[in-house]
Every structure is written in structure tokens, then in C-alpha cells.
């Protein structure tokens, strides 16, 4: 029982990270029908920015802020330079562009920092609180969950309560009409990519200190888990992405806790394929149209 409780908290903490990655993917997918395969690599790049800033300023929080700011700019630049030109291209082309960016960013990180695994500090203590011999959660876990909740709240308010959010939704769902009404559709799409990359950057900052370490390929596995979360949630709604991410985190935490930690990625593959074959629109989606 105590193991179950610990694995649940552990799963919630990791699930929050996968939710952030899933959120990043869904924000872009539902507006542009592009699945950004470079999302993980972008989060890896922003984490290196954070590492460098922290090393120079000796302040974790400056590095943290730098990662989010860098994410904002990388997301915007990636959209403007690469994906903008392939906006209406077939899926194959946008997937390959994403893969190209992934290879390029990992290579650049490797050229600058080498392949070695860098230690990356957590924001808070990772010592778990205990209640009667049952390990519960650490301050870092609380921070992880709270910061993802905070990100969701900010994005939710931005998208639903502000004029900019209204324009963003208009550009996503009725680009022609929005353009006629004077909305700068292209600029708002770029903003969407930038915000998605901020979500990804946050995920990187939260997951890399959990024993993963920072190296050019660090986010490959996390990207797959975030994608799994997004698919579980149906790839369509941001709320679904968050729920899907948390469910994925819980499922994988139980799988790796009870079977073995080396099967996390295998369990993700099984979960992903099972969901895609049985409920291609995700576990919580109501629409029935075939998209997969």
C-alpha cells in the first residue's frame, strides 16, 4: 500500500511534466495541424541556456527565467524560419522538417557542450516527506505540480479571457474570417508557437533534474511520453492534453514501479499503440471522425 501511495505521487509529478509537453504539442497541432517533432529538442536547448546562465550568475531562478524566455524566442523563430514555409504542405514534409530541426539542435548542443551528461540542479529539495514509513513527495514534486498548474492557469486565462487570446482562437479556427476582420493571423500563429515552446521549456526545467541529466538526447524519451499523453488526451484540447499527460504519468509510474524501471519506454509504447488502436480520438474525446 505504501508503495502504491508513493508511486501515485511520483506518477502525478512526472505526469505534470508530460502534461506540459503534451500541452505544447496540442497548442500547435490544433491550430496548424503540425506535430512538432522538434519540441523535445527545443526543450533540451532551453535547458542548456538555463544551465549556462545559472553557471555564470550562480542563480537558479535567473537560469529558470532564461529558459522560459529562450523557449519563447526559439518557438517563434522555428515557426518563422522553418514551419511557416510548409504551412499547407503534406504531413510528411512537416514531420521531416521537425526531424531535421531535432537533428540540427542536438548536433549544435553537442558541438557546444559535448555528449557528456551534465548535472542539473533541482529548484528545491528532492528529499521525500514521510508519513509513518510511507514515502510521499518532495518539495520539488510540489513545485513541479504547482508550476504546471500555474502554466495551465496562465495559458487558460490568456486564451479565453484576453483580446489576444480571442484573436489567437479566431486565427486558429477561422483564419480567413479573422484576416478579413483585421487580425494579424500570421503574427498570432507565431505567438502560439512561442507559447507552446515556453510550455516545453518548463517541462525541460522540471524533468531534467529528476535523475535524467542534461545531454543532447535527453528529451527524446520525454518527448515520446509527452506525445503519448497528448494522444491519450486526444490531441485536440488543451484540457485533454493535461489529463492525458497525468494519466500517462500515473500509468508509467505504476508500470515501472511494479515491473521494473527499464520498461518505462516499452510501457509507453504499449499504452500509445493500445490507445491509438482502440480509441484513436483519445480516451476523453467525444468526436468520432477518423483522423488517425
Amino acid at each position, binding site marked *: 500500500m505504501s508503495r502504491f501511495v508513493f508511486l501515485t505521487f511520483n506518477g502525478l509529478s512526472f505526469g505534470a511534466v508530460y502534461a506540459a509537453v503534451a500541452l505544447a504539442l496540442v497548442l500547435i497541432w490544433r491550430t496548424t495541424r503540425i506535430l512538432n517533432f522538434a519540441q523535445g529538442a527545443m526543450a533540451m536547448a532551453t535547458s542548456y541556456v538555463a544551465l549556462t546562465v545559472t553557471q555564470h550568475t550562480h542563480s537558479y531562478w535567473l537560469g529558470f527565467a532564461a529558459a522560459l524566455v529562450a523557449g519563447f524566442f526559439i518557438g517563434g523563430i522555428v515557426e518563422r524560419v522553418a514551419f511557416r514555409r510548409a504551412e499547407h504542405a503534406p504531413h510528411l514534409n512537416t514531420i521531416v522538417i521537425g526531424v531535421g530541426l531535432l537533428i540540427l539542435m542536438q548536433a549544435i548542443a553537442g558541438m557546444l557542450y559535448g555528449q557528456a551528461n551534465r548535472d542539473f540542479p533541482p529548484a528545491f529539495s528532492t528529499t521525500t516527506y514521510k508519513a509513518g514509513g510511507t514515502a510521499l513527495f518532495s518539495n520539488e514534486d510540489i513545485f513541479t505540480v504547482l508550476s504546471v498548474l500555474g502554466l495551465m492557469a496562465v495559458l487558460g486565462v490568456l486564451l479565453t479571457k484576453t483580446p489576444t487570446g480571442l484573436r489567437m482562437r479566431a486565427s486558429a479556427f477561422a483564419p480567413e474570417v479573422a484576416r478579413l476582420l483585421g487580425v494579424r493571423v500570421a503574427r498570432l500563429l507565431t505567438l502560439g508557437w512561442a507559447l507552446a515552446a515556453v510550455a516545453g521549456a518548463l517541462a525541460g526545467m522540471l524533468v531534467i533534474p529528476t535523475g535524467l541529466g542534461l545531454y543532447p538526447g535527453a528529451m527524446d524519451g520525454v518527448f515520446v511520453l509527452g506525445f503519448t499523453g497528448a494522444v491519450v488526451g486526444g490531441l485536440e484540447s488543451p484540457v485533454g492534453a493535461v489529463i492525458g499527460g497525468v494519466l500517462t504519468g500515473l500509468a508509467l509510474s505504476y508500470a515501472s514501479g511494479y515491473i521494473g524501471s527499464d520498461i518505462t519506454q516499452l510501457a509507453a509504447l504499449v499504452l*500509445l499503440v493500445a490507445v491509438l488502436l482502440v480509441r484513436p480520438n483519445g480516451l476523453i474525446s467525444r468526436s468520432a471522425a477518423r483522423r488517425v
Partner: protein
Amino acid sequence: MNAAVGALWRSTLFRHLLLTLVGAALLVLLTQQVSTFHDYELAEVGAFVCVTAGLTVLTGLNGQISLGHAALMAVGGYTVALLQQQFSDQGTTGIWVLPLSLVGGVVVTGATGAAVGVAAARLRGPYLAGATLALGVALPSLTSRFSGTFKGDQGLSVPFDPPPSQLGDTFPVERWQAWIALSAALCVLFLLANLNRSAIGRHFRAVRDDEIAAQLAGLSVARTQVLAFTVSAAAAGLGGGVYAVYLQTASPGSFSLALSLTLLSAVVIGGLGSLTGAVWGSLIVVFLGSVLQSWVDKLGLSPTSAQKLHDNLPNAVYGLLLIVAMLAVPGGIQSVLRRLARFLPLPRRSAPPPRSPAPAAQ
């Protein structure tokens, strides 16, 4: 007499057989002229051509994308390693031993590919890409899960017989590896080129271009896609087998996600949908890489930064080429060459009949 030659030349099978034999003869001459280091590189090219040709069939001809082909290579490589170890433990030697193991690798990988293909046939575009990526990331972890058989991160060694004594005592093992890998590549190219020109190849393309139209024409879309995945996996299995022979080990590190992505780069840079493009792409990822690396080594940087640049510069170039190719020349090198060939005063075959009748007045 002339008519007989003409009829023979029009036979696709004969033409491809002739091209394969000419290619084999040229490669035998080439491998004997170059240094053992270049022979070793040619062995890598051979292994890559097997996989990229298969990937061309899958992605270029059938429109399914795979970001996890290195995992299928790993299935072939590990099967070959296990079989070769069995043979070596029993003391069985002979010229047929390695081909038998390679066929075993092809069969096992083809079966794996069929199983993956059944799932893949229900997935489209980004979903399929994500699922194959998950496969590519997950499969290497099986080697640590079953470390008794697969020996974890360390991997398995691949013993194979030295070059036959008829070739002379000084025949370098690198040249032997090149011969093994290049024969496998020629076999794959010959078979897939014929497949491409057959009814099955047309079915592949029909499903790629318009699934609903293919279905209306009586094709089973799912069955065609599973077949394409099986064929592609079998080629990847052979490629993985000769890659393991080339490396003399099969380990999770040698079949990483990076390899999957490099192979996809080769296919896209060479020219999606053309087997010749797959050859160009494989040559580029092997030789451009080593040219860049020797250029880095001449720069005289400090050892650590030279090492970083040496390891990563080729990938940076492939990544950049991939993006540029997709945005500017989606047909890759092969389309550029075709465009150039139009300016050459070469005798050309009569223009093929137009693909589709001229659109009726709309």
C-alpha cells in the same frame, strides 16, 4: 537479331539483372583499388543502402513514415549475432553459414515488421511517425530487460568466418565485409526495383496517392500497407544483419534513435521515392560525414572541441540539409540530377504516356 535484343531490353527483369551484374563487377573492381579504410566505409554504405532502399519503398512509394527503422535493424542485427554465435559455438564453418544467418535475420525482422505493420496500417501521418518513434526509443530497452540473452548495453559480438582462402592470404577483412554488405545491397536493390515495377509496386503507389480511389479500384488498403511494412522491415533486417557484421557487434548503442533519423535523412536528401536516391543518400551520409570529419581534424583545434565538432558536425549538416531539402527541393538529389539530365544531349526513351488524361473542361 536486333528485335530479340530489343525485346530482351524491354524486359524489366533482364534490364535490372544486367544493371545488378554490371554494378557487382564495378564494385569488385572498386573495392580492390581503394584502401582498406575506404573498403570499410563501403561496407557501411552497403548496410545503409539495404535499409534506405526499404525505407524508400515504405515512405516514398507507400507513403507510410517510420522514425524507428533502426529498431528493425536491431532485430536483424541481434538475430544474426545470436545465430552466428550458435554456429561458432558448434564449430560450424562454411561459406553458407553467414548467408543462412542473414536470411534468418530477414525472416525474423520481416515477421516483426508484419506485426508492426498491422498496427501501422491503422495509423496515419503524425500518429504513425510518433508511434514508430516510440518503437525506436523503446526497443533498445528490451536488451537490458533480457540482459541474459542480449547482454545489456554491452551487446553481442558477431563472429564470422574469415575471407575464404581461395581469395589469397592477404585479402583484408574490411574488403570481405564490404563484399558481404554490398552483395546484400545489390540483392535488395534488384528485388525492390523489380517489385517497384510490378503490380505490387503500382498498388503501393496507388494507396499512397489516394487511399479511397485505391479502395474503389478493389485494393485492400490495409493489406497493401502491411505488405509494404513487411518488405521494408525485411530489407531493414538484412541491413541490420550486415551492419552487425560490419561493426562485429550488435549493441543497443549502434541501433540508436540517431541512426533511425540519419537513415531518414539519407532517404529524404537522396530523393524520396527513388531507389537511386536511396543510394545517393547512403553515399552522402557516409562519405560527407567522413569528409567533414577529416576537415575538422585538420583545423588544429584543442582536443576537446575538436572531438565535439568531429562527433556532431556531420549531423548538423544532415539536419540542415533535411530542412532545406524539404523546403526547397522536396525531390532531393535525384530530382536535381533528373532536371540536369534534361539539358544533356542524351538519347532518351520516348516520353512516357501522360499519367492522367487531360482534365476535362471544368
